[in-house]
């Protein structure tokens, strides 16, 4: 009887099933010149030389947070701050938002990251976790948080300028176009907010949660939703231009959530879905032109390199992880498997214009040549890398 009680307690504590997850983070990165800045899964900001992957200075560990252990059965390998949003480099400063609800700015000078932050957002200024990425202009830093607010901080010293409250959480990265911020939330709404003072311009309601980053092109905002539709909304008025699929009678409609950010190129919208397909839609009418069937869920934001759309898929088959990188030719509609990294990919892909960088869930950073598919693996920790 005692043994049975122990088995029950272990199962409930999650040791046996591993059901209860923790926030690990899956930050992408950014490239400036020949330096890449990446948020590692150990909660560190790493600066790398893209030529050879060598680290530029010591990685900066973000402030640790306490974790509950459940008798030590829950994974406690990472006591650092989880980072989901990609770091942003702007005018010598590297900005990053953490799961602990703080934004930090680090100075990068003389080829090194300074260990001490230039500034950290003030305690109490931001509630909730920061899961989406930051958008940084010359003067301001914009982001959404899980407390349901959109924030604007001063880019120079980090003090809060304004916040915009809503009823749902924000997990998506905002998009800025002109003087307007666009962001989608858990309350199924797409918001247009005045970038200067945080006043509301319009609100557009969908039928599902929005975690995907909106894309603005030609006066139209494109965004995917958990209701399995892609929306095109007029950026000025907030009126719907079109919705795909337009009706439920259409065949081969999307099955999963639109989680990853869409890409607009040459009058077409490329919308990745968790059902493993990239839907190609006419940007003006929403008519479905084509689709690419990649066979596994797409949660990572793709990138465009010339006419090639680089997409990462993730699957787990019999405990074996797969992270396949595809190149989709937008002109010829050909798809090509560049690499199977053997590691899950949820982080957004990033590029320097010719090479695509992929940060995996095993904290590896791969640099992949988009033409040949050749890859190099860089170390973000002492254990990974060639």
């Amino acid at each position, binding site marked *: 009887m005692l043994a049975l*009680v122990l088995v029950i307690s272990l199962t409930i504590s999650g040791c046996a099933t591993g059901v*209860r997850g923790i926030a690990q983070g899956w930050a992408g990165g950014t490239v400036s010149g020949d330096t890449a800045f990446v948020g590692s899964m150990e909660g560190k900001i790493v600066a790398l030389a893209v030529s050879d992957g060598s680290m530029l200075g010591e990685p900066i560990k973000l402030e640790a947070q306490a974790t509950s252990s*459940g008798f030590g059965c829950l994974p406690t390998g990472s006591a650092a701050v989880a980072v989901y949003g990609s770091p942003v480099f702007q005018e010598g400063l590297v900005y990053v938002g953490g799961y602990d609800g703080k934004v930090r700015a680090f100075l990068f000078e003389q080829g090194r990251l300074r260990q001490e932050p230039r500034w950290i957002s003030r305690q109490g200024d931001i509630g909730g976790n920061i899961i989406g990425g930051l958008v940084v202009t010359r003067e301001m830093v914009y982001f959404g948080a899980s407390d349901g607010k959109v924030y604007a901080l001063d880019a120079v010293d980090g003090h809060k300028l304004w916040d915009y409250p809503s009823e749902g959480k924000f*997990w998506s990265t905002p998009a800025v176009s002109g003087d307007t911020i666009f962001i989608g939330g858990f309350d199924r709404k797409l918001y247009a907010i005045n970038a200067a003072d945080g006043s509301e311009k319009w609100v557009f309601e969908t039928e599902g949660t929005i975690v995907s980053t909106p894309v603005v092109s030609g006066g139209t905002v494109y965004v995917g*939703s*958990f209701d399995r539709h892609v929306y095109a909304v007029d950026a000025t008025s907030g009126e719907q231009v079109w919705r795909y699929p337009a009706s439920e009678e259409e065949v081969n409609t999307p099955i999963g*959530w639109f*989680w990853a950010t869409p890409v607009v190129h040459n009058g077409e919208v490329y919308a990745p879905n968790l059902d493993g397909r990239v839907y190609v839609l006419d940007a003006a009418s929403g008519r479905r032109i084509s689709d690419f069937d990649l066979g596994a*869920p797409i949660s990572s934001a793709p990138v465009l390199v010339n006419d090639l759309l680089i997409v990462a898929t993730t699957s787990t088959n019999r405990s074996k992880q797969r992270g396949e990188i595809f190149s989709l030719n937008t002109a010829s509609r050909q798809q090509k498997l560049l690499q199977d990294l053997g590691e899950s990919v*949820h982080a957004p892909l990033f590029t320097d214009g010719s090479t695509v960088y992929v940060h995996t869930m095993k904290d590896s950073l791969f640099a992949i040549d988009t033409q040949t598919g050749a890859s190099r693996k860089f170390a973000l920790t002492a254990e990974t890398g060639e």
Partner: protein
Amino acid sequence: MINVLIVLSDYLFNSFGITIIVLTVVVRGLMFPLTRRQLKASKGMQELQPKLAEIRKKYARDRQRRAKEEMALMKQSGVSPAGCLLPMVIQMPVWIALYQSIIRVLAATPEEFLNLSRHLYDSWPQVFSLVPLGSKFLWLDLATPDTMLLMPILVGGSMWVQQKMMTPQTADPAQQAQSRMMLWMMPLMFAFFTLQFPSGLALYWVASNIISIVMQYFISGWGGLATMFKGGQREAAQKTTKRPPPAAAERTAKDAGDADIVESRPSLEEGAEDGKGGDQRQDRGRGYSDSFGTAKRQSRRDKGRRPKRR
């Protein structure tokens, strides 16, 4: 079960808290035949405890014979230890599935959301737009532990009551010690877990415990809890009715039930003082004075009656 939880929530005022309670009731209802069998078997085992204790005492030194006699007794009574355990083991996967479904639906991190998306049915399109579910219920955020600490108390308390009802009465000190340990260990352990886990799960545990208590009451009564109450009542009764015994001079003939012997002694002494012979004294009562015979008749009359207290 994940998809059922999501769809049910849509019909139940978009309240995941109510959904958890309703689904717990439904699942426990479906498992009732097994639960009833388990409880009856447990009750049967409890009733056999005195006889089992006798057997253990009688064959304390002969383990084989003891085991044989115990098995024979259980067979004769139609009770089996497996009858207690087997239904619980069969129900365990269902409870674990319900627990895991609640945990998964209460996804709080991006990783958990992606994991949840893999479990949604393509053929049930409405589930995709219903997620995430509203996590507010009364004072609780179902996705996070209860900061007011009420849920750990409710979980631990309800589990303690349930355990107490199930605890068999036994004279065996070893079993008593084990029962006492189980009575306190499980509730404390679950109360501690509740501090760490989403309050939606705690809500499920409280609902499940209350249902168990109700089922157990109708099948096997209050069990160990009744003994606790009765023991308290008996103590209370003793405190309210206890009086000092009356002084000997104040006793009357009606107190003959206890006092006839006292009266007879003076008669014996009187007889002796009267000079009657020893043979008469050994006449076994016939030579005694009438007062003793009167007292004896009175004692028979008053048989079973309690003497009046003053």
